[in-house]
């Protein structure tokens, strides 16, 4: 009796213990979707791509979300601080240090996080068998464009940067910096492919996802950074001649949502807020100066009757600084009035003008510059002297593109004028300040990275 109890008990227990290994199978979390499922339908694949745009504007101001306009403007001779402060002063005094947290997070971490998303989506699109070719090409084109835009500015800011083009973290963790030319060629390759993949029509409403013309407009920009003016001229012409875009007569409307001039805009996440630029450049409240002001030398390059003076506003109470930049007009959270404008038609005229000077099409160049001057309401140029035209082009770029994507800073560097101009304007200028420091932490984590000279 006793034994039979024992035996049955032991066997029951043993059976119980051996069974149900499937107990540890769990339900998937509602907060996740497996990669293979994301890229089976157009709608979810688009959601992954839209996630990239929302992410690009989440951190403010990050590399492609206003940081170039503000930080590079401060580093150049465009902008200055109204009071010394820990965030802006190191840029303004060209005294960045490798431990600078803004450079580290906003200008390095956020871009590389975005690049991963582009790479991951590109790989998944490539593997997806069920997505229709049309949407697949469009999304691939968008992601190549976004990736290229990041590398264009990473190379501009830091020089040699790791060129990560896939999601293999084992090898990517050990990539050193690639030569600037190599990165720029990759940018051009990506943008070329994007321009072939993307349709002329925008995906979805408005202009908040790039189309073929956006790819070409950015390609034109990439060409002038690479010094390839012949190609820049061709591509800029294609954008101008497409006749999809026009210069807006009232300069206050240039950056409005869906303005005729903009080629690509990025909406803020959750459709709240306005631009990061406005947050730094506009007065925070009545009677208070904005943190970042235009330099007196910038204000001085505008003629009194230049309509672009509407991009400045004066406020008596500010005191010693008379004007602030009013190019981006809204900083309220109450309504979204302006999106981040990545590229617009006016820049294409200036790119073409510069390229035409390089190829000695001086009449064409003059005509392009005059398009911009006409809109600004100032005298058109009559000269056909190459040096004078180049000087005029430089002035025009400075005026037209104030506080926009760091144009002034990168122009001075690519024209080889940074040391002359900034050396004169800024007491602490050093030639090595033309490149920003690679973040210190990344040098620790990746022994293959090398610091730029001077840091």
């Amino acid at each position: 009796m006793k034994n039979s109890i024992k035996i049955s008990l032991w066997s029951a227990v043993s059976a119980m213990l051996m069974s149900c290994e499937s107990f540890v199978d769990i339900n998937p979390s509602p907060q996740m979707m497996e990669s293979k499922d994301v890229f089976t339908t157009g709608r979810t694949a688009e959601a992954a791509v839209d996630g990239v745009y929302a992410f690009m504007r989440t951190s403010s101001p990050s590399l492609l979300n206003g940081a170039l306009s503000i930080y590079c403007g401060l580093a150049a001779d465009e902008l200055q601080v109204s009071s010394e402060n820990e965030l802006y002063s190191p840029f303004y005094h060209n005294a960045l240090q490798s431990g600078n947290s803004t450079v580290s997070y906003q200008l390095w971490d956020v871009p590389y996080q975005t690049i991963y998303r582009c790479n991951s989506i590109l790989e998944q699109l490539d593997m997806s068998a069920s997505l229709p070719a049309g949407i697949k090409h469009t999304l691939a084109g968008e992601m190549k464009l976004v990736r290229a835009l990041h590398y264009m500015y990473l190379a501009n800011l830091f020089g040699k940067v790791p060129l990560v083009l896939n999601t293999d973290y084992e090898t990517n963790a050990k990539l050193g910096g690639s030569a600037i030319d190599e990165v720029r060629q990759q940018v051009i390759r990506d943008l070329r492919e994007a321009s072939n993949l993307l349709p002329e029509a925008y995906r979805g409403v408005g202009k908040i996802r790039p189309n073929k013309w956006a790819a070409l407009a950015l390609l034109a920009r990439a060409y002038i950074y690479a010094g390839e003016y012949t190609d820049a001229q061709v591509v800029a012409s294609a954008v101008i001649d497409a006749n999809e875009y026009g210069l807006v007569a009232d300069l206050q409307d240039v950056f409005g949502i869906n303005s005729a001039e903009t080629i690509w805009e990025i909406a803020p996440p959750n459709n709240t807020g306005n631009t990061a630029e406005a947050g730094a450049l506009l007065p925070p409240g009545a009677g208070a100066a904005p943190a970042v002001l235009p330099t007196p030398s910038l204000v001085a390059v505008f003629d009194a009757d230049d309509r672009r003076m509407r991009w400045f506003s004066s406020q008596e109470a500010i005191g010693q600084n008379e004007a602030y930049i009013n190019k981006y007009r809204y900083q309220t959270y109450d309504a979204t009035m302006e999106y981040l404008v990545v590229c617009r038609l006016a820049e294409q005229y200036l790119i073409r003008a510069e390229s035409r000077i390089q190829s000695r099409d001086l009449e064409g160049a003059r005509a392009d510059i005059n398009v911009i001057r006409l809109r600004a309401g100032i005298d058109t140029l009559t000269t056909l002297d190459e040096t004078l035209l180049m000087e005029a082009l430089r002035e025009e770029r400075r005026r037209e593109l104030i506080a926009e994507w760091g144009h002034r800073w990168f122009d001075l560097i690519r024209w080889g004028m940074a040391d002359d101009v900034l050396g004169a304007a800024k007491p602490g200028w050093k030639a090595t300040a033309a490149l920003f420091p690679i973040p210190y932490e990344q040098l620790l984590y990746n022994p293959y990275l090398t610091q730029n000279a001077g840091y």
Partner: protein
Amino acid sequence: MKRNLRLWGCYAFIQKATKDFLCVQTLAQAPAHPGPGLAIGVIMFLMPLAMSHTAHARQQHQAADRVAGSGDTSRTMKDTLLLEEVQINAGYYTVKDRERTGSIGRVDGKTIARQPVGNPLAALHGQVPGVEVTQQSGVPGGNVVLRIRGQNSMLNGNDPLYIIDGVPLSAAQNPLNQLNNAAGEGAISNIGAGISPLSLLNPADIQSIEVLKDADATAIYGSRGANGVILITTKKGVEERLAVNAGFRTGLSTPARSMDMLSGPQYLTMRKEAFANDGIEPSSTNAPDLMLWDTTRYTDFKDLLIGQGARYNDAQLSISGGSARSSYLISGSYHDESTVFDAEVAHRRYGLHSQATLRNGANNLRVNSSFTVSSASNALPVRDLTRYIKTSPFLRLYNDDGSLAWENGGIPYRNLGLQNANPLAFRNQEYDATQLNIIGQNTVSYLLTQELSVLVNTGFNVVRNDEHSRNPSTSIDAFSSTRPSASFSNSRTVGWMVEPQVNYHVQRPWGELSALLGATWQHQGMESTSNNGSNYSSDLLLGSLSAAGNISARNNANEYRYQGTYARLNVNVRRRYIFNITGRRDGSSRFGPENRFANFAAAGAAWLISEEAFLRQVPWISLVKLRGSFGVTGNDQIGDYQYVDRWTPGYSSYVGLSTLLPAALYNPSYNWERNRKLDVALEGRLLNESIGVSVNYFRNVSDNQLMLYTLPIQTGFASILRNMPATVINKGWEVQINYDLPVRSGFRWSSAVNLSIPRNTLADFPDQASSSYRSRFVVGKSLSTDLRYRYLGVDPGSGMYHYVDADGDGEYTVADAVFPASRDTYLFGGFSNTVSYRQFELGITFDFKKQDGYNYMYGMGSTIPGYRYSNQPVIVLQRWQQPGDIAPVQKFTTVTGEVYRRGTLLNSSDAVISDASFIRCRNVSLAYSFPATLTQRAGISGLRLMVQGQNLFTVTGYKGADPENQDLYVLPPLKTFVLGIEITI
């Protein structure tokens, strides 16, 4: 009959208290309201007095010497010395202390009860050898970090497994809160900051805490035993008679140690000198604080922000009793603490604990059931205001109309790079949280035969947390375009488990054999929702989510399942040779399908040498025991679903359309981490058990480490979950000595001292040079070691910090940070004494640590003295001023030039690490028990008055604020002083 009536009275009271606190819980949503909570405390205190009359008849039966330790009828310190009787809880089984083969430490309820702490873990300081306790923050509810025998995992997952009455505490490692609050700001090391789930436990409900340390004790917990196991056992009713016990304590807390900041004139000196050093003329652009602000103003921000005395109230009421076949215990508790930030109550906890044990007449069926409910509310600032004691003393706080100032001299503070510049704004931000924790457990055991029994243990744990934080317009920078906002979040964790067990025990002439076979199935589900509303039009609507102009919402849910089968075989030969083998096979849903199951096992043995003939006759030796064990345990402290290549919905939409984001880098092939543990100990008790000595050596080897491996961000993410080939060894010595002076004419003295000498070594790290950790870890050194610049002090010539230029290139680059520096604990322990004489009892506990840690210079590496608008600790006045000066602080500067750069290198140098050893008087408690003759006249059986102090003083040469949390700008542990009364009926 009478007894029943009394019981009924208690029951009615408990019911009322429960109802009251449920009401209060909803009241707590409104701004803190001390009334009802305090009322409960008072009621609970007065209740036993009212009941004393009914108890009158039974008073003679009360033993006069019964210690009124909050109903603690457990063993006292003296009892633990009588090892023969002491049954040690080893989780799935109990073992006689004399015969145990494993390394298990024990702290009894009395030791915990006499310490006025909010989190029971804070009462473990210096109590158990090998257990290192660090209080991260003095904010009520804040986390206490506990490490058993050192750090096994290089980076993540070093927390022990917490088990309360057999039920694993859901998410014990994770902070309860989803929204930011002051408890969430940990010190520099920032481990598990947030509201600790253990702060929901009432320390007075705890009968004992057992700490399982070695493989023999922990292998039966298999995959979760690698970092040791903390078994918390709640009180049980043991007496046959009805006993009512009530206690009330009230007191005050202040920060234990902090540093003084510069006064107004001193700050002025610093700033002016900084400008003079740089050769820059102060102007309204570069020095608004000097040119535009009122430099005669002086706000002592330390006093303003953390200078409030924090109140402490604690009330306990317990009823226990039973009959021959049953016993029960019901206790209610109330606890509140305010913060040093603000006088309002910050943390309140209500608890109800009940327990019953029943057995049948044949004594072969036993049921043990316990149920604990606690509800806590936290009303904390959103930030730890200690962060802001470095605010410039000239900062204008109020406008003329009394509203908070956000500018001075026409320059908004935000233009100066000062975010949250006016720290008083945090007083207008509100955060409150209500937590509910329910733990229920039920054990049914049935003795089939004399030798064979079955047992089923079931348990559940529910943790709920509802949080609400509000940023009204009065807390928002007037110069920001941000509108009022509010966050609402809640989370629910539900865990259950079932554990059937079969026990077999035989006694034979040669000795004893016991076997145990069991299984466990555990499930844990977590759900959470968090909504953020912004763009409110009015502060009055911040309680409404629908009033928000913009809402962003997220929710989450995950599931964790775990199953194991375990067995134990214990053989005791002639009460002399004991062998113990335990094993476990575990499966965890946290691993991919191929790696889900793993086996763990351990073997232990003990030799009771004193039972051998050659020692048996030695009269002064009671026990000499040699024991040892070896085994393998594991660790699965990683997140759920990590093995799935997954995307998650984005927090933000894009023009109204939903978005998806990649969740993490994908690694499907990670598997179990293993930890091999070796333990050897010699134990003895001498001179009629009055002296107990134990010397223990351990060596744990952990490899195949599972961790979040840091990657350069160019890979897209900052880390990946993967196994590391590195090997970590923790070894050390633990010594414990107890001494009990024989009682002489009413004088009793017992004393215990313990000492741990840990040594942590990274033994091997293949391919480290090309990994992300080339400067983070050093092979042959401890895990706290990294490569740093070698600090040479302030150069008397240039007045700047200088460091060793290792590669001789004339510049300080990464290549110069090659000098290992450690922040190790070299030795720690505790020393406690209990002296009683007649009606007085005095207990004093010290704990000590010899360690290196971060000093005050760490703060100066990120906030450069003289630069911009931050105040500094007074110590910066010892700065370099002119060539030839020998000074600990370099010259002041205002620009990001070379001086600034040398300053920022401090944090990457060994200058910020120095001796942080301390001896802390952790607890002093003095109690006076009224003589039985007096109390009996008053109709009660015991009345005791007491004074208790926690963290009373610290002896240290530490350069900084508090050597325990080592961060100037995080609230240090508090010094608490309470008065209390206890009544037993």
